[in-house]
């Protein structure tokens, strides 16, 4: 799927309720309360943080492309809507197999490790001991060194090749796509291709190649993690973040678990109330048993949720008009909870990663 079509998919889920930049922040994986809420409400987990280094220029080019093709339109206030044509196209698009929420850009760590390992094995098999590594990152170098040394005691370099070939076959990706994926790998006398070179040789745009690459890695990682690929699994270790919260939100959560009030946390940490409120939204999104009742009564929450369903909206301004007595913060908390319950019901007990995967398969 092209980058432009991915953008169209995202916009189709937030249809008529968000500005242009919501999609941009989402794809970059911005850890703001707003973006995390959007991810949750609209079930956009596959796309969250899919391209952390996405540039405004690349985004604008795709966005303007959609405008020019008449697939989206912008209201005078800047709200983005799908047109009829856009809606038709969005519905015909295949499901994305991206898994952004789970990997959050860490798939690049997997690929860096794999690249260095392949380069090392390639030289080893050609009988060459010294070479300049494709990555200077000492952490990657250490991971690969440790894993290769352990693995090669009992397994041969060719076993790595077999696992790569089998797992890629099992992934179901087509041959051309796979050739673009492995084109980024380097070995003895055969260096990986840059995006520009890959673009000129394949006839695809660089941004489309980058988006495809990330999705290919997510698909591959899924195959590796679910199958019997002990050698490749070694490169996929530690990719999933242990806590989905940002560093700052985690500190707020620690204090909150100790029973410190929201205002007190703001005062102690020297942060604005609104920042701490953002943290609470983030905690509520990630914690299925977050005690909403401390901030808003259960009755009240239920009424609001019912109204949200009736109006089929996630628009804060609209809800504020209906419930002027509630603060924005209270409404956002309820919406955070609503997103959770809608996507995976009430049986959720733990790990948000698993849930995110479930979401995206559904």
């Amino acid at each position, binding site marked *: 799927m092209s980058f432009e079509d991915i953008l169209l998919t995202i916009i189709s889920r937030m249809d008529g309720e968000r500005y242009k930049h919501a999609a941009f922040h989402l794809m970059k994986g911005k850890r703001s309360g707003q973006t995390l809420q959007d991810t949750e409400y609209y079930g956009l987990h596959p796309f969250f943080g899919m391209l952390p280094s996405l540039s405004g220029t690349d985004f604008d080019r795709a966005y303007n492309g959609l405008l020019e093709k008449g697939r989206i339109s912008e209201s005078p206030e800047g709200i983005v809507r799908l047109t009829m044509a856009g809606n038709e196209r969005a519905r015909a698009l295949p499901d994305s197999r991206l898994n952004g929420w789970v990997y959050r850009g860490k798939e690049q760590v997997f690929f860096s490790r794999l690249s260095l390992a392949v380069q090392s094995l390639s030289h080893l098999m050609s009988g060459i001991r010294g070479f300049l590594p494709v990555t200077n990152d000492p952490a990657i170098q250490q991971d690969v060194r440790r894993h290769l040394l352990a693995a090669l005691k009992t397994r041969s370099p060719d076993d790595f090749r077999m696992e790569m070939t089998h797992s890629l076959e099992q992934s179901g990706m087509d041959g051309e796509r796979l*050739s673009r994926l492995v084109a980024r790998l380097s070995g003895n006398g055969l260096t990986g*291709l840059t995006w520009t070179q890959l673009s000129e040789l394949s006839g695809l745009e660089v941004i489309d190649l980058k988006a495809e690459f990330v999705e290919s890695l997510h698909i591959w990682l899924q195959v590796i993690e679910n199958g019997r690929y002990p050698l490749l699994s070694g490169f996929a270790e530690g990719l999933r973040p242990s806590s989905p919260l940002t560093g700052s939100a985690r500190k707020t959560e620690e204090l909150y678990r100790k029973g410190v009030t929201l205002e007190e946390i703001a005062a102690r940490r020297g942060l604005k109330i609104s920042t701490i409120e953002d943290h609470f939204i983030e905690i509520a999104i990630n914690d299925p048993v977050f005690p909403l009742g401390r901030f808003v009564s259960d009755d009240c929450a239920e009424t609001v949720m019912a109204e949200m369903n009736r109006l089929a909206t996630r628009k804060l301004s609209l809800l504020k008009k209906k419930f002027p007595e509630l603060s924005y913060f209270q409404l956002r908390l309820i919406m955070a909870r609503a997103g959770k319950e809608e996507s995976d019901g009430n049986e959720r007990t733990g790990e948000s990663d698993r849930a995110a995967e479930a979401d995206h398969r559904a």
Partner: protein
Amino acid sequence: METNVQGNLTGLLKRITGHEAFRPGQEEVIRSVLAGRDTIAVLPTGAGKTLCYRLPVHLTGGTVLIVSPLLSLMEDQAARMKSEGEKSVAALNSFLTPAERSFILQNLGSYRYIFTSPEMLLQRHVSARLKELRIAYIVADEAHCISQWGFDFRPDYLRLREWLEGLETRPPVMALTATASARTIEDIEDYLMMDHPAKLIYPPDRPNIALRIIRPGGRQEKTEWILREVPASPAPGILYVQSRKRAEELSEMLRARGTSAAAFHAGMEKEDRMLVQQQYLNGELDWICATNAFGMGIDKPDVRHVIHDQLPSSAAQYIQEIGRAGRDGNQSLATLLYGEQDGETAMFIALDSLPDPVSIRFLAERMREGGTPAHAGEEAGLSETALRVADYWIGTDGAEGAALRMEALAAEKRGEISAMVRFAEGEGCIRERLLALFGARPAGKTAQCCSSCGLRLDEMPAAGRQAQRAPVLNGWKERINLLFNVPPL
């Protein structure tokens, strides 16, 4: 015993590197360090500076501490030393994860070569661990970066002095660079607190690099010249350009004409920069269209041609950049494309990277009010380099002192560019005039000297060469098999 040890230097060279003989200057520098003297060595580019610090430690024992101003340079050098068979090499820098760092620090005594940055030296526990070692000698690499008069001033480098001051007994210090004016050498001697150093200064001449100046007029004419001449000219080559955009455009136009070329600049993602560099080193690419982000720490012996699309802002920079050609000693070529506007452009760019007195005062004011340098620098519209320089001098000299200093620096830069303009526009032997900028003269007359003395381009090697293995998009199984060295069925 000393005579005996020194007499065996050639034997040691052979044992460690496999080479039969030293290149000019290497042996003198090594002997000076072995005699325990502080040493300033100015050796031409490609003269094998690494060997000067690689070898002596095999006789002295202990550890060599190599301080390098550029992180990427340090990584490259450490990687290269390892790939050449020196296993006990560590790069101690801010890229390390906490785990890796504590591993290195715990095993510090087991390394023969420790590369580090000036910032690291000032961290107390790093410094304390280093002081426990038996350091044979300290190397200041790319030492011209320590001088504000150098073209690549790194204020952080000055912190090396603070660290040296804190040592009870200081091992000999070796300062290495390819280009240093008299003023820069004074700075090096002073900032590194050297004690009557041996100054081994070799003229920056590279007789195997023929020099050529072409005057195509404006930018359009330059582009036409490049597209016409580069495909048939000696390769592999580096084409130095002013901007990222120009690097992209020229490389694309060259590719469209069948020349294997790629752009290289700081705006590309790290992975792609690395791939371009490796393709070039492996002979999969003939031309790199690069900004000055390319070069330091890249050691490709067979670069045959360096072209400058614009006037470098100093003779030292020019010497450094053309010096990336012909490191294998074979005949190479350096071409400077000079247009009449180039002096002005160079002036504009050089002065733009210097903070002016008004911005200095503004910056100082903002920082007094508690603003961060980064934010204030953005408000004042300063480049990253300019901010780095301004921040440092405000800290040591105060706003007014720093402003005065900037005026002096600007005057110096103007002088250097004017000298380059006179060089580009002048008459007579190009080599003589270039070396005269360093107070030196060519050692002798070479057959392929310069375009003023007459060049025989048809006798240059490797003209119009094609890359052996241009990048291709293989079938996926085929590529995996190639990577794993599995013969095709």
